[in-house]
Every structure is written in structure tokens, then in C-alpha cells.
């Protein structure tokens, strides 16, 4: 719509008639024509011919409708006092934020970066423990890495114990990828969920969550990673999960909680809107 049209919008308000596009039969004629044109392919040529004629007629008629000016009909406005009302006048407020009519919860939280930092720190802690296990128990730092890669990598399933202790570049890359991605995501989750836990987030996030998670994994590890399931050492596994949980949790809760920027529109923050559209926010503070 051009600016000319939007001007006409404004002036309409004062008039008692409204212009609307006039009814027209040409669209249906054109549609029927095109359908017949194609229907001729499955019946006889005469149908196509008729369809072509109708389609051309429809097109010509349509063009005459919109060229040079669009046909319009004028409709009288039946002025009614439109009344908007509600039976629910009062609005309850949240007990936690009685001074905020609209709330984004929770009111304070860790920044997203806290979760990322926590995840990275946790991933290092976990990796150190896992590799320690590899070196101490199996005599190879690559052993746990190859085991982890077997989650996705079929070839590792067929590896012998000896070659599990050797370095495989593909396994290494896969395992690193899986480890980092998962750690980051879990870190983000910690950042999001630890503030929801009122007391001793470290106990829950660092100890209880890993135990729950390990228990869950214990039940379906055979399906997820058969190789790991055969060769796993559960005490070390639990220990490395604890290491992740405690380190990630500590890093997260040591970050400062920031107040959520209540109700700054996302689209504005993202610079999404066309300029000029947000102007009415200027009168946000003055009561109307």
C-alpha cells in the first residue's frame, strides 16, 4: 500500500461511505476457462477450445476491471456505537512480583554466558577424569575417547581392545564433538535451571542430577552405546559425571544474577522492526 492509500485510510474515518472492490464475475470465468482448457486434455478438444475462449474473455474482463482504475463500489456505513466491554474488570497479580503487572519470570537469572562457561569448565573436568581413568586403569588416554565415539561410530564397535587403546583420528574428532556439544548444552541447562532451585543448587545440580542421569543411562546404555556398555567402569563413570556437575554448577552459581530486562520487545532488541513503527512507545510513561 503506498502512502497515498494510507492517506485515504485516514480521510475515510470522517466520511460515511466506504469504497470496497466491486463484485466481479471475471475471476470465476477465468478460473472456469482455465479448468476447461485443461479438462479438454481428458475429454475432447472442443472443451479446450471453449475453455480458451472463456479464459481470454475472463482475462480481458479482469483487465478492464482494474485498468486504468480499479472498479469499486461505494457502501454506506451503518454507524453503530461499538462498545467493548468485559465482565472481568480486575486483574490478579503474581504474588512474587506484585509491582509488575506483566512479568517475565524469574525476575533475576544468570546470563546465558554463565551456562556456557559452566558447560565448558565442566567439560574440562569431566574429560580430565575420563582420561585419568584411561591412563590409570587401561594404560591409554585414547581408550575412553574411542568408547565415547562408539555411540555413533559403527566401526569402533568392531575394534579389538588393543586397537581401542590406539589413537584414531576419526574417533577422536567424533568424541570431542559429542563431548563439547553435550557439555555446552548441559551447561546452558544448568544456567537456566539452577536459579529455579531454591536451596543448595550445587547439591542438586552437582550430585543428584548426575546420579539420576547415570541411573537413567544405566538402564538404556546397551541401546545407546553397546560397546561402552560392555566395557564401562561405573564408579569412574559416576565420578566423571560428578566432576562435571560440581564444576559446572559452581561456575554457574558464581556468576552474578542479572535482572531480566522486563518487557523490552524482542523484535525491538533484535532490530527487527521498520524504523518509525515504534514511535508510540514515547508516550509509554505518561498515563493516558
Amino acid at each position, binding site marked *: *500500500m503506498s502512502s497515498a492509500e*494510507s492517506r485515504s*485510510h*485516514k480521510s*475515510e*474515518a470522517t466520511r460515511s461511505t*466506504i469504497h*470496497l*472492490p*466491486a*463484485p*466481479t*464475475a*471475471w*475471476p*470465476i470465468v*477465468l*478460473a*472456469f476457462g*482455465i*479448468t476447461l482448457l*485443461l*479438462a479438454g*486434455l*481428458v*475429454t475432447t478438444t472442443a472443451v479446450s477450445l471453449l475453455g480458451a475462449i472463456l479464459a481470454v474473455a475472463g482475462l480481458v474482463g*479482469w483487465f478492464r*476491471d*482494474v485498468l486504468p482504475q480499479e472498479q469499486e463500489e461505494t*457502501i454506506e*456505513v*451503518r*454507524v*453503530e*456505537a*461499538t*462498545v*467493548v*466491554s*468485559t*465482565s*472481568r*474488570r480486575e*486483574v490478579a497479580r503474581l504474588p512474587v512480583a506484585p509491582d509488575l*503487572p*506483566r512479568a517475565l519470570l524469574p525476575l533475576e537469572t544468570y546470563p546465558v554466558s554463565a551456562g556456557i562457561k559452566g558447560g565448558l569448565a565442566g567439560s574440562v573436568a569431566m574429560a580430565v577424569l575420563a582420561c585419568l581413568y584411561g591412563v590409570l586403569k587401561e594404560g591409554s588416554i585414547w581408550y575412553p575417547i574411542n568408547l565415547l565415539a562408539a555411540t555413533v561410530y559403527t566401526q569402533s564397535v568392531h575394534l579389538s581392545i588393543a586397537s581401542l587403546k590406539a589413537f584414531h583420528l576419526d574417533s577422536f574428532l567424533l568424541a570431542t564433538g559429542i563431548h563439547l556439544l553435550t557439555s555446552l548444552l548441559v551447561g546452558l541447562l544448568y544456567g537456566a535451571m539452577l536459579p529455579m532451585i531454591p536451596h543448595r543448587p550445587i547439591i542438586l545440580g552437582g550430585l543428584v542430577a548426575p546420579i539420576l542421569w547415570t541411573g537413567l543411562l544405566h538402564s538404556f546404555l546397551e541401546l545407546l552405546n553397546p560397546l561402552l556398555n560392555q566395557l564401562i567402569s561405573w564408579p569412574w563413570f559416576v565420578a566423571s559425571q560428578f566432576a562435571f556437575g560440581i564444576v559446572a554448577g559452581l561456575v554457574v552459581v558464581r556468576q552474578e544474577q542479572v535482572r531480566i530486562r*522486563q*518487557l523490552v*520487545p*524482542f*523484535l*525491538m532488541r533484535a532490530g*527487527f*522492526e*521498520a524504523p518509525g*513503527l*515504534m514511535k*508510540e512507545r514515547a508516550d*509509554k510513561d505518561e498515563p*493516558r
Partner: protein
Amino acid sequence: MSSESIALGTVIESARPIGERLHDWVVTVDHKKLGILYILYALFFLVVAGIEAIIMRIQLIVPHNHFVSPQTFNRMMTMHGTTMIFFMVMPILFGFGTYLIPLMIGARDMAFPRLNAFSFWMTAFGGLLLYFSFIGGNGLYGAGTAPDVGWWAYAPLTSRAFSVGHSTDFWTLALLVSGIGSIGAGVNFIATILCMRCPGMTLGKMPLLAWLNLVVGGMVIFCISPLTAAQIMLCIDRYLGGHFFDTQAGGSAVLWMHFFWIFGHPEVYILVVPAFAFVSEIVPVFSRKPIFGYPIMVAATIAIGFISFSVWAHHMFTVGMSAYGNSFFVFTTVAIAVPTGIKIFNWLGTMWGGKILLRVPMLFCIGFLFQFLIAGLTGIMLGTAPFNWQLSGSYFVVAHFHYVIVGGIVFALFGAFYYWYPKMSGRMCNETLGKWHFWLFLIGFHLTFDFMHIPGILGMPRRIYTYEPGRGWELWNLIVTIGAFFQAAAILVFVVNLLWSLRKGEPAGNDPWDAWTLEWSTSSPPPDYDFATTPVVRSRRPLWDLKHPEDPDWKYE
């Protein structure tokens, strides 16, 4: 107020000769009339395709049944699928979109009113052309034949060698015709939503229905076109002796599959996103809370729109793609569960802490949430390729997509019917009949589609006109057929309710649900010009602002 003016309007309307009133509907370019035309047309085809489904279910009630011949069964299955997708669900969603979008964004009509009429009539004539095949299609023996190649019409079954006569041509041409209409509707949706918003309605303040239909518009233009292109190729093959899908001359059957599913999968989202839109409007109103996480809902929808174009080959896990190809499509397929999950959680978040009013529209929305959850989960099962090798092409997959389309989309649609019926007709739908409809349909739905998963797991392929006894499928097929009759009964109640309420329903008034979007600020049904004065909005819930002047939304958005 408005109830009297409606009564008056009805008197004037019925005083005019019927021919003239009919003429008005044929030549109309008014988005409200066209919307209603779309809806009525789709309801007609709902009944037609429903009858086809019932015929199939009767045939399958016991093994080795002789209710219909295999040829008839195959036609029924093809026509049921094609009709339901292209001539029932799509038109009805376009109908609601056409009716509601201008009203919700404070416009007087669509951006291209004549194109709107053209789109509707193309869709309508497409459907008629398809059904003309029953009498006009010259089959092998000269008798009328409907297409029988399945709704996805895999090559080379559609080639001249395997499909003589014109039945496949009817299918192709009908979809070509209606496809042009759909693309027109998509273009119109986009232009309307972007260019016709009333002052103050920035993109961030549009109702979610408008946002979601904007995404639908985008998906329509990018996914119906590949289908149209593929249909043109099929026509070239069948009429000009081309070899696109001619396997004898080096053509590829798999290419058709790719082209079809590049259309076919986004199509699912074209159908389901408007259903999301209905739910996103109804759930807040009946929970008395704004939608939870509006920006994230929008972002999730856009994400779904994009990802849906990269998942098509999960319909083709069984065609022998390489392991890497399969893995890629597994990844995109399960990835789409993330934005979809976000949407479900956000609807739950909207209900949480609200005051949920269990009227019929809300009942249907809760049904939607429950069934769409299950549909999504069976979707994950089908999305993991190895599981898919067992499940695809079986009754499990039939149950899955009916869960999406009936349990999800149609439930949301019925919710939308009960919710906006007062706006369209000026009268409320009968609540008691509505509840009967809901419970009957719910029971029928679950009888049919819950139990339909089981024969799939037991190895029953889809699209078979009969099956062998002794494979453990008999019981489940019987239950499924019984459920189909429950659903038919529910649809009957629904139609009765629509007709009864049109005459006898309680007058609705402008705003029967105490809702917040612009369509409820005008009379029911709205005048030709929608709004006497162009509304100006300052928030996502303009009517909330007016109802609560001391605590308006615009202060916080």
C-alpha cells in the same frame, strides 16, 4: 445492538430473490464470503472423502471381504487421500485464513480481492474436475474411472504403460488447477499480512494467527510450486511422450519421489501451522492469559517453516539412500521436534496459572494438544530411519499421519469452528450438541487411530484391499472400523449443530468469548466493510487495552 441489526439484515437478505443472492456469492470478492465459500466447499468434500474412508473401512472389517473390488478400493484410497489433503483440509484452512486475517489485522479486505476469488474458484473447479473422473474418465474398458495410483502417485505407476486411459490425467490436471489456486492464495496471504495491517500493528504486534499464516503463505508458494512443476513434467510424459519419469528410457522413479515429497512434507506443515494458529488464539482466551512466550512462538514457527524444507526424504528412507543420506535426514527430522516441542510447552505455559474455561472450543484444543503430542512422538519413531524401515508403508504410518491430520489439525479446526462460528453467523453454536460432537469424535478417533498403530507393528502394509487371516490383524481392523462409524456419527452431530444453530442459536453479540483480538470489536457477522473506522492498535491485544484502560498491554510490549 448488533443482534438486532443482524435480524434486520437477515430479513432484508431473505426478502431478495434467491437467484440474486446466489449471484452475489458467485461474483463476490469479499474475503468473508469467499472464506465461507471455501469452508462450505471443504465441508462438502469432508463428507465425500469421509464416505470413501467408510467404504474402505467396511472392506477391511474382516479378512478376504468382498464388499468392493480391488480396483474400487484403490480408487477410494487414492481419492480419499487426494480429496482430504487438497480439497478438504487445505481449502478449509485457506477459508479460515481468508475470513480471519483481514479482520484480525484491521483491514477491509485481502490485498488482492479479485485474485482471492480466482484462487477459490480454481480450487473449487480443481475438485470438481477430479470428481468428474468418476463419470468422465475413460478407463481401460471405456467406463468412468477415478484415479487409482495412490495420492502420491509414484512413478512409473503413473506412466502410460501402467495407467492407461485418463484416470491419472484427471488427478494430475485437478492438482495442477487447484495448485494454481493455492499459490494465488499464498501470494495473497503474504501481501495481505505485510501490506494491509491497520496503523500501529507492527510485525511484533500481530496476532499469532496472522504470523503463522504469513509463514504458511511463504511455505505455500515455495512448496506447492514444486508439485505444480512435477505435475507439468508428468503431463509432458503422458501427453508428449517425454521421459522424465519413464524408467524404460533412463528416467528416474526416485526423482518423482523427491519432487513429490519436497512438496509433500512442507505440505504437512502448511496444514498443521494454521491449526497451531487456531490453538494459539483459542487457548489464551479460554485460559484468560496472553500467549506464553510470543516471540519464541513466532521464532519456532519460522524455524519449522525453514526446517520443513529439509526433511522431505524421511518419506524415502526405504528407497535405498546411502547411510549418510539417511543420517542427514534423520537429523533434520528429529531436529524439527525441537521447535514443535517449544510450541507445545508454550501452550501449556499459557494454560498454567490461568483460569481454564472448558467450553467446546477449548475442549477441542485440549484434545488437539493431547493428540498432537502423541502424533509428534510417533513422528520421532518414524523419523529414526531404522525404525522407519519397519514402520513406513505400514498401518503404523497411516495411524501416525491420521493422528496429525485428524487428531491434530481437524480437532483444532473444530475448535476454530466453535470459536469463530458466532462471528461468522451471528449466533452461538449449541453447547450441548458441541459436547456430544466432541466426546463422540474423541471416542471414535481413539478407537480408530489408536488401534490402527497395532496392525502396522504386526506387519500389515497400507493400501491393501484385503488381508490374510491368521496374522493377528483381524481384531484390530474390526475395532478400527467400529471407530470410523463413531466418527461419522460425530460429524453428523456437527453438521446438525451447524444447521440448527444457524437458525436457532443464541444471538452472539460482538464479543461472546470476552476475547482480545480485533475481529471481536466489530459486529457479528461483520459488515461488508469489516470496520466502520480503521482501527488503531498499540498492542497484541487491542481489546484488552480497551477493556482494561488502567492496565493496558501497550505499556509493556
